[in-house]
Structures are given as C-alpha cells and as structure tokens.
C-alpha cells in the first residue's frame, strides 16, 4: 500500500475514533459527575438527598428549574434491588419520580396524576429477584439517579413540598 494511502486511512480512522469516542464518553462522564455531586461524593448512595430551594446559586446540575423542589437518590444496584417510594404533595401538587440510567437515558417516569396516593416501585437489574406483586423497573446499568420533582414555585409551596417528600424512600427491600 502506498504511504500516502496508508497515512490517509490511519488519519480517517483516528478522526472517527476520536469523534465517536468523545460522543459516547460524555454522557457517562457527566452522569458520573452528577451522581458524585448529588451523593455527596459517594457518602449518600441508595438514599434520597433533599435539595434546597433552587436559586441562582444552584450549580449541581445544568438548567435547574426554580419552580421545582428536587430530591435525588444516586443508586447502585450491585448489592440488590431497591424499593422506591414517593409520597404525594399537599393539594395534589405535581410530583414525578424519574429514573436515569448511567448513559443518561430516562428509563422510567411516574407521576401522582397516575398514582395520586403515592408512587412505589422496585428498581432492579435484569435477573435480580424481586418481590411478587410489585411494579418493577429494570435498569440497564448498576448505577444511575432517581429524581423526585415537585411543584414548588414559591417559598410556601416549597416548604409544603419539602415536608411531604421527607416520607420518600430509596433503599434496599
């Protein structure tokens, strides 16, 4: 093979590897950074952390909504499935629980319009034993983030939502 052709093919392969590698790496990297932040550098795995009211100083995750109260559970399913529960907010205020895999995909979401009495499900890896009769969400990755969003556009509604969310659970069955 001619030298120029060989170098050209090598160059094209390197460009493709750099481009695709970065595109695939970024979501996993940013998710890992976010999980580290919300779990207080790994100190709070498999339990909810209740965030303060969103302000201009909220810098943990990009583009936060100042109208919502956020609670996060950085999960690790390597030790077994988890039971996730979210209590409703007063006056049927909006509550959703969303599950994000390690590649950032939103793999499940439930809200209190569907479940006005509260949200409850088991989060597991494929093949893990789960209790009969429970709603089960299968995660494609051991690690990820469960996010509780509650409508809280002012200080009074935030206080009410904050009180309600303290009954949330994210932990081993």
């Amino acid at each position: 093979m001619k030298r120029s052709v060989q170098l050209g093919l090598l160059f094209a392969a390197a460009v493709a590897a750099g481009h695709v590698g970065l595109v695939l790496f970024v979501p996993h990297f940013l998710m890992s950074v976010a999980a580290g932040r919300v779990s207080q550098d790994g100190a709070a795995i498999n339990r909810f952390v209740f965030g303060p009211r969103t302000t201009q100083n909220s810098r943990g995750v990009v583009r936060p909504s100042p109208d919502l109260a956020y609670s996060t559970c950085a999960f690790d399913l390597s030790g077994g499935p988890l039971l996730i529960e979210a209590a409703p907010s007063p006056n049927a205020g909006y509550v959703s629980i969303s599950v994000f895999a390690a590649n950032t995909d939103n793999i499940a979401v439930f809200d209190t319009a569907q479940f006005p009495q509260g949200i409850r499900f088991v989060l597991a890896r494929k093949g893990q034993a789960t209790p009969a009769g429970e709603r089960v969400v299968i995660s494609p990755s051991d690690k990820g983030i469960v996010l509780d969003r509650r409508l809280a556009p002012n200080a009074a509604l935030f206080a009410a939502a904050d009180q309600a969310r303290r009954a949330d659970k994210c932990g081993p069955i």
Partner: protein
Amino acid sequence: MADPNKTSLWAKAATISVGLIVGLLSGWWAITGGMGGQNYSGWYGSAVTGSADAGPWLRARVAISGLLALNKSQAIYLTRKTDDDGAPLREECRYRVTGGPIPGQWWSVTVYAADNFLPLNDDDALSFDATEVARDEAGRWSATLAPTRPEGQAWASTRKAGNFDITLRIYQPSAAAQADFGSIPLPKVTRLSCGEKA
C-alpha cells in the same frame, strides 16, 4: 536505500495523534451549542430528548445542556435563543412574551445564562409560570423578560444573564402535543426596547 512507500513509526504516530485531535474537536463541536432538535417557530426541541430512542449525538448534547431531562410523556422542553426577529436575546433589552392556552397541566418559562445555569441575580424572579400570568377571556396572557421589574405583569429577570436563552417546560403535555410539537401554540417573543442595563 529506504523504501519510499514504507511508513515510519513516527509518521504513523503523528498521523494518529493529529487525527484523534481533529476527531475530538469535531465531536465537541457536534455536541455543544444546546439541546438541539427541530425548529418550531423559533423554539427548538426534540421529541426524543431523555428517551432511550435518542441517538448518541442527541444524548451527548442533552447531557451537556439538559442532564436529567424527562422524556416527552412527562415534560416537553423547548428552548429559544432569539426573539421573533431572529436577534439574540440580550440582557440589555426588554421583551414581551405572549401566548395562549398551552396544552399541558402546568408550564413555566425560565431564563438561562450562556453557561446553562440560572443568571446570577437575586431578584427571585428567575422564571414565570402558568400560575403567575393573568389571562383574558380567550386565555391569552403576557409576561416580560427584562433586567428590571415591570409594573403589574408576570416577569422573569434577565439581570446578569448576558446573552441568554429561555426554556419553556410543559409538564404532563397533552397526547396531541406529544405526538406533534408543531401543533403546540408557542409563545411569541417580541423585543420592546434595548439599551438599559441594571
């Protein structure tokens, strides 16, 4: 005598290094610049944001500028960086945002600075939402984007926002809205004046 067609190890290493750098730069260029998606009357959004159906490029774009975004069954995100004339949204200008009924249980419009975070002001007015706007009989409403508070109108402060963008979040959107973002009657953003800076 050396074979002119034989490539030295050094030449291969240099070619691979330059190729990797070009690839990384082109990858970064492809995934920065916002959440991307289609243009709906100046608002940009993607029906596969947050979804497992998102391709690797959209997934990476969303990770950078909208990590932990919900999929469209729960929330629709639409972002715009320009006014109705196509000019960039700027802190020193005042804008009127007008709209009608939005097909969801609740919605909000939030201001974000170029770093994808909320502007560093303490006006406690980083957004306006469906509960704050006054509607006429037809459900039409109006709000203001400006660095200073207007009289008697819903307001989101753009003070210290620089060149900013706004995101419309529609929670629990209707089935029709989920099926076709183009069917959503989206708010207009009209520039009123420029030149003031708080």
